C-alpha cells in the first residue's frame, strides 16, 4: 500500500499517527474506568463519562483560581506548576464523583442483587443528573446567593456553554521524526498516560488490594469466604477508575483547553469502545485498545474525511469483534497473574 498516496505524504501519515496516539492515550485512561468496573462487576459503568467531565472542569477552575480570567498563552514549562495543582484537583474531583456514584447509583442495587440491566438504567439516570447538575451550576450558586462571587466559575453567559481554560498552553517542537515535529505537549500526554497505566497495572498485579480486586473479579463468593471485603474492593475499583479519569481530564485540557457539561458523552462512548476493542476487563487491553482506536480513527479521518471519523472507529470495532469476539487481548481482569 502506498501510504504517501493515501495520506498526501509520508510525513502527514506520521503526523496523523502521532496525533492519534495522543488521543489514544487519553481514551486509554478513560477506558480504564470502564474496564475495571466491568472486570469486577460485569457492569457497563455508563456514568463514567461524567466522572471525566467533572475532572476537566476541576482543571479549568484551578487555572481560573490561580490565574484569573484574563486570557494568556504560556508554554509548558511556565504552566507546569499550575498544571500539577490542576492534576491533583482533577484527580480528587474525579475520584470523589466516582465514589459518590458508587455509593448512590450502584451500591443500593448491588446489595439487592438487582438485574444487571436495571443497574445500567440507574447509571444512565446518574449520568443525566450529573451532567445536568454541572449545566445548572449557576442556579445552584444562585440558591446560596454566591453566584456573583463565583461568577468566574459558574457563568460563561449560560452555564451550559463551553467553559474555556483562560490559559492556552502553547506546544513547542522538541525533535523531528521524519519531517514531523513532536511537541512537548504531545510527548507529555503520551508519557504521562503510559506511566499512569503502568503504575495501575502493577498495582493490580502486585499489591494486596490488587489481589483483592482480582479475586472478586474471578469469583465474588469465594473471595468473600476468603475474607475479602467485596464492598471495599468495588469502592477501590471506582476510586482507581476515577483517578485515571482525573489524569485523562488534565491531559485533555492541556490539549483541547475547553470543556462543557456534555463533553464527556462522546469521549465516554469512544473510551468504552476502546475498552471493548482491547478486551473488556483487561487493563493492558484498555491501553492497546485506546491507542489502536486513536490511531485508526485519525487515519480514517485522514483518508475518508474528518466527518467520517466516528464511523471508522465503530466499523473497526465491529470488524475486530468479528475476528476476535472477546477483544484483541481478550483476557479478564481476574486472570491477570501476579
Amino acid at each position, binding site marked *: 500500500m502506498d501510504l504517501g498516496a493515501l495520506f498526501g505524504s509520508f510525513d502527514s501519515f506520521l503526523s496523523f499517527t502521532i496525533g492519534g496516539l495522543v488521543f489514544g492515550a487519553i481514551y486509554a485512561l478513560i477506558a480504564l474506568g470502564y474496564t475495571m468496573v466491568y472486570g469486577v462487576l460485569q457492569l457497563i459503568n455508563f456514568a463514567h463519562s461524567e466522572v471525566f467531565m467533572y475532572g476537566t472542569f476541576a482543571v479549568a477552575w484551578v487555572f481560573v483560581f490561580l490565574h484569573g480570567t484574563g486570557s494568556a498563552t504560556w508554554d509548558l514549562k511556565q504552566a507546569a506548576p499550575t498544571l500539577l495543582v490542576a492534576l491533583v484537583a482533577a484527580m480528587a474531583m474525579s475520584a470523589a464523583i466516582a465514589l459518590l456514584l458508587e455509593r*448512590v447509583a450502584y451500591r443500593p442495587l448491588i446489595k439487592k442483587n438487582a438485574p444487571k*440491566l*436495571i443497574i*445500567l*438504567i440507574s447509571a*444512565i439516570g446518574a*449520568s443525566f443528573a450529573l451532567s445536568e*447538575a454541572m449545566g445548572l451550576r449557576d442556579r445552584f450558586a444562585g440558591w446560596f446567593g454566591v453566584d456573583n462571587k463565583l461568577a468566574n466559575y459558574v457563568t460563561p453567559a449560560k452555564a451550559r456553554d463551553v467553559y474555556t481554560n483562560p490559559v492556552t498552553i502553547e506546544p513547542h517542537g522538541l525533535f523531528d521524526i521524519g519531517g514531523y515535529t513532536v511537541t512537548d505537549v504531545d510527548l507529555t500526554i503520551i508519557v504521562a498516560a503510559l506511566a499512569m497505566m503502568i503504575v495501575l497495572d502493577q498495582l493490580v498485579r502486585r499489591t494486596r488490594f490488587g489481589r483483592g480486586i482480582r479475586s472478586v473479579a474471578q469469583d465474588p463468593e469465594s473471595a468473600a469466604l476468603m475474607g475479602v471485603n467485596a464492598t471495599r474492593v468495588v469502592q477501590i475499583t471506582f476510586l482507581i477508575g476515577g483517578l485515571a479519569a482525573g489524569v485523562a481530564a488534565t491531559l485533555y485540557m492541556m490539549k483541547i483547553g475547553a470543556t462543557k457539561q456534555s463533553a464527556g458523552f462522546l469521549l465516554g462512548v469512544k473510551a468504552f469502545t476502546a475498552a471493548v476493542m482491547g478486551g473488556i476487563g483487561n487493563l493492558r487491553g484498555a491501553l492497546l485498545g485506546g491507542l489502536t482506536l486513536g490511531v485508526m480513527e485519525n487515519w480514517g479521518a485522514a483518508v475518508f474525511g474528518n466527518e467520517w471519523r466516528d464511523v471508522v472507529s465503530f466499523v473497526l470495532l465491529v470488524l475486530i469483534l468479528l475476528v476476535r469476539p472477546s477483544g484483541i487481548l481478550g483476557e479478564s481482569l481476574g486472570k491477570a497473574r501476579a
Partner: protein
Amino acid sequence: MAGLGIARRWDRVVDRYNAQPKIFRILFVTLLLVFAYALPLLRPPILTTNSIDFGGVMFRVIAFALVALGLNIVIGYAGLLDLGYVGFYCVGAYTTAVLTVYHFSWPFFLALPVAIGVTMLTGVLLGAPTLRVRGDYLAIVTLGFGEIIRITVTNVEWVGAAAGIKDIPHPNNLGPEPTPPFDPGGWFAIPRVQWDGFVPSLDRVHETHVLVFGALDAVPYYWLVLTVLILVFIADKLMLSSRVGRAWEATREDEEAAELMGVPTFRYKLLAFAMGAAIGGLSGSFYASSQSGYINPQSFPLLLSMLFVAAVIVGGAGNRWGAILGGAIVAYLPERFRDFADYRLLFFGLALMLLAIWRPQGLLPPRRTRRALAAQEKIEELEGEPVDVL
C-alpha cells in the same frame, strides 16, 4: 420482595377481570378503548400538562409507548441489549421522508410498508454478523450502529445532510378535504373539554376534525398511532404465546440449554432483532410524517436510544403492559416537569435513578420473573441464606 406490591395488585386486577362473564369483559375493554381514544380531548385536570398542546404531548407519549413495545421484543423477550435502537427509528423516518417528498412523491400509506421493510432488512444486516457476539458486547456494537446511522445521514447529501428533510406529507385525510381558509374539512368536528378547576365545560373554539391530519391539531395523529399500537399489541401477544415466543424466552433464560433442546437460537435472535427493528421503523415513519413534517439528524441523538432502553427496563422488561407504561412515563415525565424548565432533565435523571433503586424489577415485571423471585424468597426462608435462582 418489598418492591413487588404494584405488580401483585396488578395481578389481582387481571385475575378479577378474567373471572368476569364475557359480556362484562367486552364492555370493559370497550370502555377502556373509548377512554384511551378520548383522553387528549378530555384533558383531565392534574394529568394535563400546562402547555396548550396536550394533544401533542399525548402523541409523544403514545409514540414512545409504541417504540418501547418494539424494543421490548428485543430486550424483554429475547434478552438482547440494544443500545442503538434509535438507528432503526432513524432509518424508518428517513425512508419515509425520501419516498414521500425528497426523491419520490409516494402517498404516506404506500411508503409506510416499504419503510418497515427497509428497516427490517437493516435489522437483519446488522444482526447477522453481530448477534454471534456475546451479550454485553452487543450493547456497544449496537450503540456504534446508532451512531453510524446518525453520522451517515448527517454527511450524505442524498438524504438532505445536516439540513434534514422538510415538508414531509402528513398521512392521507379521511373524509372531505379541507379547503383553507374557511372549511376545515373532515366528516364532523369534536369539541374538547376545558376545565375550570374541577368543573368541566365544552371548548368550542378548539375542535378536532375527523379525520384531518393537519399542522394545527395533534389529536388525529394520536388516534392513528394509538390504533397502530393496539394492532402491534395484539400481534405481539399472539407472537409471544406461539412457538416463536417460547423459543425467545428459552433463549433468554439459557441459550445453551435452548440450543440443546433443538431451538435454533441464532435464527430466533435474528428474528427478534428484525421484528424489533420493524416496529422501530414503523414508529420512525410516523414520527417523520407527524405534525411538523420535518426531520434532521439531530432528531436522532444517541441519548434517545438510552431513553428507549430506560422506558423498557423501568416498565419491566418482558411485559408488554410494562413496556407501554414505561414508554408513557419516560415521555410524560419531562413534559410534566416542563414548569421547571431548565431543571427537568436533572429531575428526570434523578427519577430514573430512584425508580431503579425503588423497583429493581421494573414497575410491572412479567409474571414469570415474579414467580421466580417468590420461589427464591421461599428457598431463602427455608435455608436461611441467599441463593441465586435467576
